[in-house]
């Protein structure tokens, strides 16, 4: 520990936050326990998952596999469950969009309009998340149910094609939007908070129109937050299966997460399929993240 203190407090210099100090074995010592944990319980399991995705079943013995390089697992899993994959991306995309639409005014109001209410608003955003998210999702199921207030009003006004909210994609997207909203609000707020209000005022002087000011000044300055929020919402939403399970129907709204879960727990011999789907999902999302980060240069995420 004293070694840490020594180097940490060493000739830090005014060079700024990223000041790195002399080469030694100290960083490795600090790194060792955490990195070892992540190697053993994150990297090794992923490698194992990959090998499982290539295993083959012993014919006639469901649940018994042998080591193989059966890339056909990927082909059959992806063709069979393509609709679920598509739904995951679509629902997650829609939920991300709606979460953005709801979050931006909230984050904006917190950053520029709330004044001394800011702390209270922050608490209001985080607080609901201490009531278990399963409980809240089930509450939504009852609120959106056919005999519940929302569906009855919409039905009374003949605004609900099909007559139901629960058991449809609408409820699933609504649930995803609700559950991941704070992951959108907080990064947008963090980046708006750093914007100097005088810059926006200057924008207001330059452009007559408030909307132009917003579009050319405020929005671009909050982009890092928007991008971070998009990823933080899209990633968990794409892998989620609880919302589709509790709010959706058995047939037409299942997402890839539901398939992975049931292949693991309910289908004998489903491990390789589930592993192939998990691995594809992960590869897809990581590719997305890296393209995104490269394209928009939000390197601070890493």
């Amino acid at each position, binding site marked *: 520990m004293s070694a*840490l*203190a020594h180097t*940490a*407090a060493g000739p*830090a210099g*005014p060079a700024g*936050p*990223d000041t790195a*100090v002399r*080469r030694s074995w*100290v960083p490795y010592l600090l*790194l060792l326990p*955490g990195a070892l*944990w*992540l190697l053993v319980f*994150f990297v090794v*399991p992923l490698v*194992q*998952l990959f090998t*499982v995705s290539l295993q083959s079943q012993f014919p006639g013995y469901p649940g018994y596999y042998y080591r193989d390089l059966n890339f056909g697992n990927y082909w059959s899993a992806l063709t069979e469950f393509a609709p679920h994959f598509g739904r995951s991306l679509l629902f997650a995309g829609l939920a991300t969009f709606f979460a953005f639409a*709801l979050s931006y*005014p*909230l984050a904006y*109001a917190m950053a*520029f*309009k*709330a*004044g*001394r209410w800011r*702390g209270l*608003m922050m608490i209001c955003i985080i*607080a*609901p*998340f201490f*009531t*278990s*998210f*399963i*409980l809240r*999702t*089930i*509450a939504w199921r009852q*609120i959106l149910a056919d005999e519940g207030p929302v569906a009855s009003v919409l039905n009374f006004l003949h605004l609900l094609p099909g007559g139901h909210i629960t058991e449809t994609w609408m409820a699933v997207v609504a649930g995803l939007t609700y559950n991941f909203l704070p992951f959108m609000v907080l990064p947008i707020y963090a980046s708006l908070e750093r914007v100097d209000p005088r810059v926006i005022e200057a924008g207001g002087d330059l452009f*007559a129109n*408030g909307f132009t000011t917003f579009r050319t000044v405020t929005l671009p300055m909050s982009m890092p937050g928007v991008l971070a929020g998009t990823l933080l919402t899209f990633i*968990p939403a794409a*892998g*989620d*299966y*609880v919302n589709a399970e509790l709010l959706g129907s058995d047939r037409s709204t299942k997402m890839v997460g539901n398939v*992975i*879960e049931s292949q693991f727990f309910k289908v004998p011999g489903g491990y390789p399929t*589930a*592993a192939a789907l*998990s691995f594809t*999902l992960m590869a897809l*999302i*990581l590719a997305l*993240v890296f393209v995104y980060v490269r394209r928009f240069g939000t390197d601070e995420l*890493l």
Partner: protein
Amino acid sequence: MSAPGEHTTYVPSMGKRLQGWLAHRFAMIAAILVLLYLFVPVAYTFAFSFNNYRKSNITWNPEGSPTLKHWQNPCGAPGVCESLVKSIQIGFIATLVATVLGTLLAFALVRYKFIGRSAGNMLTFIPMATPEIVLGASLLTIFVQGFSNVGLRLGFWTIVIAHIVFCLSFVVVTVKARVQSLDARLEEAAQDLYAGPGATFWKVTFPLVLPGIVGAAMLSFSLSFDDFIITNFVSGSETTFPKFVYVSYLRGIPAQANVIGFSMFVIAVTLVILAQVIGNARKPK
């Protein structure tokens, strides 16, 4: 930063004032509506904790409701308090380990330049970008196909292990941000005043980073406490509070779960407000 909402020096034209007023109202009204929306299911959970239901706590029974009987006997439903205790135990252990390991990692990654630093950054970031279901699935395969050979069975400790993995990433990110924003001049000043390296660390660096560490620990605990997807994969027959609620959903959730869920909300809000009040009181004016 000047207080937002207060008008500063220049006087805008009528049209601009009207626009500004509308923009001001629009953002605030939208914000309040969104906040209300966030509270809708919490209010539902709260209301139905007073329901004198017969078979399942889905429809409101006007006879005998509201009732306080579930609040008087929060452990009345079989298994609900056991699962709560398990969740708290798991949350504490996972938070403790993740906070210690994550803080060490964060210091290494910010304060040193060494071969493998970018690999270290990557290794701590990727778990955050991995969907929970993939984390859960990979841990399940390794626990079942690998570590069961060394006697590790699915249950309490596999949940703890899994929670540490995802909490660790969040701790690293939170503490890293705090260490990066440290003013290096404070540490220099300490050294100019002849503080040794140990004293500089413990008297200056550590206290400055501490709020970040505390924040990271609180985040860890809430992530662990509310986790369902990963837990469901690696828990075997062990039951945490979210898993209890999920599993009992088909048979009907006992109102005791509503009582506990809402109480956690109240406790968390109280703690956060207390922390803010104490923080404000200690801040030099």
